[in-house]
């Protein structure tokens, strides 16, 4: 219950207030029903209860189940949600039936709400973070959910060197691992060296979604060397064809690098549980009979019977399948360029295409590696006039017209509209098409010598060639890059594009061997920016932030690797450090603005066009799903719209084939 | 029938020539079965003579012929050749490079008139190539020579632009002869050159061969399974059985009085030229011995009508029965064997 949320210091009042206000927004909270008989369940479950294979709904639900306020109306049971993912991409697959993170992001994407934990608080001058778990929740196999799972995860998974190469970095403040304590059956706490201000947001995002997979200790102990009988465990390891218990554990806990959810025996807290692992590219998840949320009328959620997820090796084919009417709920990896295809198939396929907003401030960020090894290029890339010239030479309207069906606006990599850090001036700075201005700037830098073909020469007399590496599975970037080649030719620069396997781009980045990079300009949302400002602060050594990789490596390794940043780059790192331990909203706003101002001045990232929507495919009679919304990595797809309360009018999709 | 003087110089001396197939040790240690196609053959051919080599199919005579022309590399033994300029070289052991000068001296004529001519080459190329390869002629000169050769073997010079498929079997054999002659060889290994031809054509080819021999002082090693042809053409004859010579003699001697039961059996299989000479044909029973698994003792004993105990255990040596006559039989001389010569002569 929210009542237990009691900030100990005034400075945390704002944070608490934020959480409290979110309840009204998201409609999440506990509401007691007078009699258990008020709960209703899906017909299949009622049959199972009648036949005695399942306890009654009252026994399965918590005493005070979470009541989800439906978006539009109370729904009816039935129907298959059909969706398709591409190449088993993990996060899309995970978001398919919505993670139940420890905390959650509100429907409007702005704030953090309770979920598995009903409240949280900072004590001990903010250095201790206390998490109060909901009571009465049961795993999909009927076992009780309590704090002992956290103890298992923290002490036996996160701190176990065989399972985790290193403790989860998101839980570290100033490089230090916190101390964990299980206060009681439903309370856990971590004590840090300084307040971990971003922790609630992180518990609502990636870590918050992945940790619960380690929590069913009653199931996982049998595969863990700390608990299982050694002989029995060795037997299980050998029988499954593995060589170490850790391999078996990783396999059974579904913690897979690419393919989540492969073990139907694994208990879950999600609205759906795996009934059949991926077979012939198809995976089916049935309703979880112990799911702990109900609608205002006491109907146990979810409404739909199951989710049928097909994995496609090719995005083109997935989109063809959409147009053929094989899916009724797709919100990942759709491309705006394929809108004509999706829209053309709407009527035939019994679906409609909604256009949602994303967390991309710009569709692409073009990054010059400011720590590039070539000294001539390094000097050039660190000259902001060069980057301004580059930016001015881009005909962004043409990019919008040719790549985005004319449906985009020129934009730098700032924040998405609606963000509290959005600044219109910075977002559009140097986005006008001005090749003359670009040429003038390039001349001003001193790139005046040209060869016979009109290509400018570098200060050492070699032709000025910019080399960009693009992952081959990213056709969107390739299309933009192809236009950049032409734009650059007009200002006398040779722009080389090399598309190679994604993993090889990764290897180049890790060695700081890239010169110019391009990536999707996502994560520019309030939900992500404070803790993951990949494009604005060089902190992440494992990201795609080509622009300051050596600086990021220096930061991430505590000075062991990479290169020490100077000036503004150093400054943003310090600001980021401060952001992580600052809970005061006003100061956080200031820090963010300062980081973004420095970025606008340095033009570390150059955006192309922004506000390109993402098509979302919804079955014609799918209800309780917003017409307009946000989707993208910042919200792990769109789990904040709560798939469990979505239903088909009439109990089945109108496009279902018999 | 030409008769040669005994004083003629030896041109080819084959000594203990062997050609085995298989029998190599593989890396896995298994040894495959050895096939002794030619197993220690010794004889001498004199310049200008026609030396016949007869035996059933599969007895190794073709292999022997090819070893001598070095179309195959012998496993052992020597083929001592006496070049025109004197001396002696062992063709069997020369490395390909050293062999080159002598290649042109020993040429071959083949049995199959179809497969012996490359269907995709014109006669000019077929006959001219040996000259070009050996640097005897080039350009227009080749055309001249090919034209001459064609006319010599009884074809028209302008045929040289044509492909072999335009010719009949006999004509093709003439082309094959022209090719063999292209290098002015001294020895020609004739590997059953007429057996694939119609009888009427056979005679023409044999006559051509004889004429050429006289004209160019050629020496022939004439391989045949047809005793009639051998009797007609050859000065001396060697009879082969599973890789070995079992009898060697002047043609008239051999046909008059064979010393080896196998020779007798071969002769009896020839349809008698005179049908009135009623004679029980001593047909060969059983199959040719398996060269990969030879019987002990005399290799011929399982099929021999005169076999005694000794034949089963002891392998006979090739011995000189009388000057110039060799035989490989324990009982040579004991037996009275039938020839065909007197019958043939009676008919003449």
């Amino acid at each position, binding site marked *: 219950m929210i009542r237990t949320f009691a900030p100990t210091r005034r400075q945390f009042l704002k944070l608490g207030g934020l959480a409290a206000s979110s309840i009204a927004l998201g409609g999440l909270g506990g509401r007691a029903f007078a009699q258990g008989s008020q709960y209703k369940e899906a017909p299949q479950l009622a049959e199972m209860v009648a036949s005695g294979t399942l306890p009654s709904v009252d026994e399965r639900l918590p005493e005070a189940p979470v009541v989800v306020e439906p978006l539009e109306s109370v729904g009816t049971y039935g129907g298959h949600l059909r969706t398709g993912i591409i190449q088993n991409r993990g996060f899309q697959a995970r978001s398919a039936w919505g993670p139940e993170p420890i905390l959650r992001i509100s429907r409007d994407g702005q704030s953090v709400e309770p979920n598995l934990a009903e409240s949280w608080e900072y004590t001990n001058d903010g250095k201790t973070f206390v998490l109060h778990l909901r009571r009465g929740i049961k795993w999909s196999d009927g076992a009780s959910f309590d704090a002992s799972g956290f103890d298992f995860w923290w002490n036996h998974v996160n701190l176990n060197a065989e399972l985790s190469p290193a403790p989860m970095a998101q839980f570290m403040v100033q490089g230090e691992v916190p101390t964990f304590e299980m206060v009681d059956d439903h309370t856990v706490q971590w004590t840090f060296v300084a307040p971990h201000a971003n922790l609630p947001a992180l518990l609502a995002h990636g870590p918050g979604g992945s940790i619960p997979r380690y929590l069913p200790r009653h199931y996982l102990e049998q595969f863990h060397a700390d608990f299982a009988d050694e002989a029995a465990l060795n037997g299980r390891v050998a029988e499954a064809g593995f060589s170490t218990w850790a391999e078996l554990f990783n396999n059974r806990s579904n913690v897979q*690098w690419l393919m989540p959810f492969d073990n139907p025996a694994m208990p879950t807290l999600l609205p759906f549980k795996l009934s059949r692992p991926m077979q*012939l590219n198809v995976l089916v998840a049935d309703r979880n009979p112990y799911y702990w949320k109900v609608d205002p009328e006491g109907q146990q959620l979810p409404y739909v019977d199951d989710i049928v997820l097909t994995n496609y090796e090719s995005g083109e*084919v997935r989109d063809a399948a959409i147009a053929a009417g094989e899916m009724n709920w797709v919100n990942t990896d759709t491309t705006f360029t394929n809108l004509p295809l999706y829209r053309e198939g709407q009527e035939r396929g019994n679906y409609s295409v909604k256009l949602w907003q994303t967390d991309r401030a710009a569709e692409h960020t073009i990054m010059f590696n400011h720590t590039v090894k070539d000294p001539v290029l390094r000097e050039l890339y660190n000259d902001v006039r060069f980057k301004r010239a580059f930016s001015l030479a881009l005909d962004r309207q043409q990019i919008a017209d040719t790549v985005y069906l004319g449906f985009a606006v020129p934009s730098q990599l700032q924040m998405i509209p609606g963000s509290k850090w959005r600044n219109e001036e910075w977002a559009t700075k140097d986005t006008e098409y001005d090749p003359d201005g670009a040429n003038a700037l390039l001349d001003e830098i001193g790139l005046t010598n040209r060869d016979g073909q009109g290509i400018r020469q570098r200060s050492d007399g070699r032709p000025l060639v910019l080399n960009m590496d693009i992952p081959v599975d990213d056709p969107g970037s390739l299309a933009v890059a192809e236009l950049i080649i032409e734009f650059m030719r007009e200002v006398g620069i040779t722009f080389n594009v090399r598309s190679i396997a994604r*993993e090889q*781009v990764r290897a180049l980045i890790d060695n700081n061997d890239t010169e110019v990079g391009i990536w999707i300009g996502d994560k520019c949302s309030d939900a992500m920016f404070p803790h*993951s400002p990949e494009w604005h602060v060089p902190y992440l050594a*494992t990201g795609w932030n080509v622009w300051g990789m050596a600086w990021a490596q220096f930061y991430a390794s505590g000075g062991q690797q990479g290169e020490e940043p100077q000036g503004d780059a150093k400054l943003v790192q310090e600001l980021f450090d401060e952001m992580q331990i600052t809970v005061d909203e006003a100061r956080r706003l200031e820090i963010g603005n300062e980081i973004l101002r420095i970025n606008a001045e340095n033009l570390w990232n150059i955006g192309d066009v922004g506000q390109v929507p993402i098509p979302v495919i919804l079955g014609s009679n799918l209800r309780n799903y917003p017409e307009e919304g946000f989707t993208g990595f910042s919200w792990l797809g769109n789990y904040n719209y709560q798939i469990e309360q979505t239903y088909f009018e009439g109990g089945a999709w109108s496009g279902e084939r018999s | 029938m030409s008769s040669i003087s005994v004083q003629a110089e030896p041109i080819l001396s084959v000594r203990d020539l062997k050609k085995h197939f298989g029998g190599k040790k593989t890396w896995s240690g*298994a040894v495959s079965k050895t096939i002794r196609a030619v197993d220690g053959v010794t004889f001498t051919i004199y310049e200008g003579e026609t030396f016949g080599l007869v035996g059933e199919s599969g007895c190794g005579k073709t292999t022997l012929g090819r070893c001598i022309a070095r179309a195959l590399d012998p496993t052992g033994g020597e083929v001592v050749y006496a070049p025109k300029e004197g001396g002696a070289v062992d063709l069997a052991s020369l490395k390909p490079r050293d062999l080159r000068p002598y290649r042109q001296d020993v040429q071959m004529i083949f049995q199959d008139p179809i497969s012996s001519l490359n269907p995709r080459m014109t006669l000019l190329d077929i006959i001219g190539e040996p000259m070009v390869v050996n640097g005897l002629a080039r350009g227009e000169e080749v055309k001249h020579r090919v034209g001459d050769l064609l006319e010599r073997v009884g074809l028209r010079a302008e045929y040289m632009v044509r492909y072999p498929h335009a010719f009949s079997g006999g004509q093709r054999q003439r082309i094959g002869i022209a090719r063999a002659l292209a290098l002015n060889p001294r020895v020609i290994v004739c590997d059953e050159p007429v057996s694939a031809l119609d009888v009427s054509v056979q005679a023409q080819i044999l006559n051509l061969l004889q004429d050429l021999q006289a004209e160019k002082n050629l020496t022939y090693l004439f391989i045949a399974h047809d005793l009639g042809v051998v009797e007609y053409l050859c000065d001396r004859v060697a009879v082969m059985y599973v890789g070995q010579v079992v009898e060697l003699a002047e043609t008239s001697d051999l046909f008059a009085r064979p010393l080896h039961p196998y020779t007798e059996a071969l002769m009896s299989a020839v349809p008698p030229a005179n049908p009135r000479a009623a004679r029980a044909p001593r047909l060969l029973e059983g199959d040719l011995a398996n060269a990969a698994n030879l019987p002990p003792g005399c290799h011929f004993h399982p099929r021999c009508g005169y076999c005694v105990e000794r034949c089963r255990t002891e392998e006979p040596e090739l011995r000189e029965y009388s000057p110039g006559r060799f035989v490989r039989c324990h009982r040579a001389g004991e037996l009275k064997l039938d020839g065909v010569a007197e019958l043939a002569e009676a008919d003449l």
Partner: protein
Amino acid sequence: MMNYAIRRSGQMLVTVFVISVIAFVVIQLPPGDFVNSYLATLSGGNIVTQDAIVALRAQFGLDENLVVQYWRWLTNLLQGNMGISFQYQRTVLDLLAERLPLTLAITIPTAIFVYMVAIPIGIYSAVRQYSLVDYLLSFAGFIFLAVPNFLIAIIAIYIGYRYFGGGVGGLFSPEYELAPWSIGKVLNMMQNMSLAILIIGTSGVAATMRVMRGMLLDELSQAYVETARAKGLGEWRLIMKYPVRVAVSPVLSTIGFVLPALISGTEITATVLNIPTTGPLLLNAVRSQDMFLAASIIFVLSILTVIGTFISDLLLVWADPRIKL
């Protein structure tokens, strides 16, 4: 023949060993290792520290010398343990067991389809050279050769759903996906599979048919055919008796490559048709440097190649008695 088979088997072992080395080395050709590609799959926000990267390498054994890694893989392989896939956290054996049967279920019928269709057509086109049918078949064949399989597959899919209301790839149409096994479901699967076989096989048919036609034309011009014809043998009997047997030998001599070529060469088509064969798995494994998975698939495929070559050598001897072993 027996001797030959034994001898060849011995050589096959050596070849397979050499191939295992090559397989292992080849997948190490691209720079980086699985840890790089693991990082490539992470999205931002997932922070992996430098210490963790080092630890990850150690966990996967990637910090060791290549020879040591190879030796460990080989010794495990000899005990029937192909190791685990880093990215799937499953045993390679398990993954192969899931994919290989389907792969064979597609490729073997495809191979049969290719030969059953291409050889008779090739014979017919050669014998009736420059007939209308010959021209039509040439034309059709070259269209299938000149349009990539991938494109043909996409066009087929498009036509299928746009005009016939069919499904898009996969082994089952959506209505059968959740249904229990029934005759309808089996028929549905066979229908989807035959589309795959047809698309994957078309270019093979076109190529094999051309080769067969060419070889038979060569053979028909041989003198012995003329001779046989002169002897008055019936035309078809004559052709079937010898020239066809000889002409088919080059077609047979590549049979050994057909299986692996189909398996690894069709990954693009399998991708379009969304059939989970080993092709996409290998592609993925190689790209992400999932070492044991990639090396093991390559190894299994190479064994198939070696066996295929062996079979084709035996067939060669059967078809053309002039060839000595």
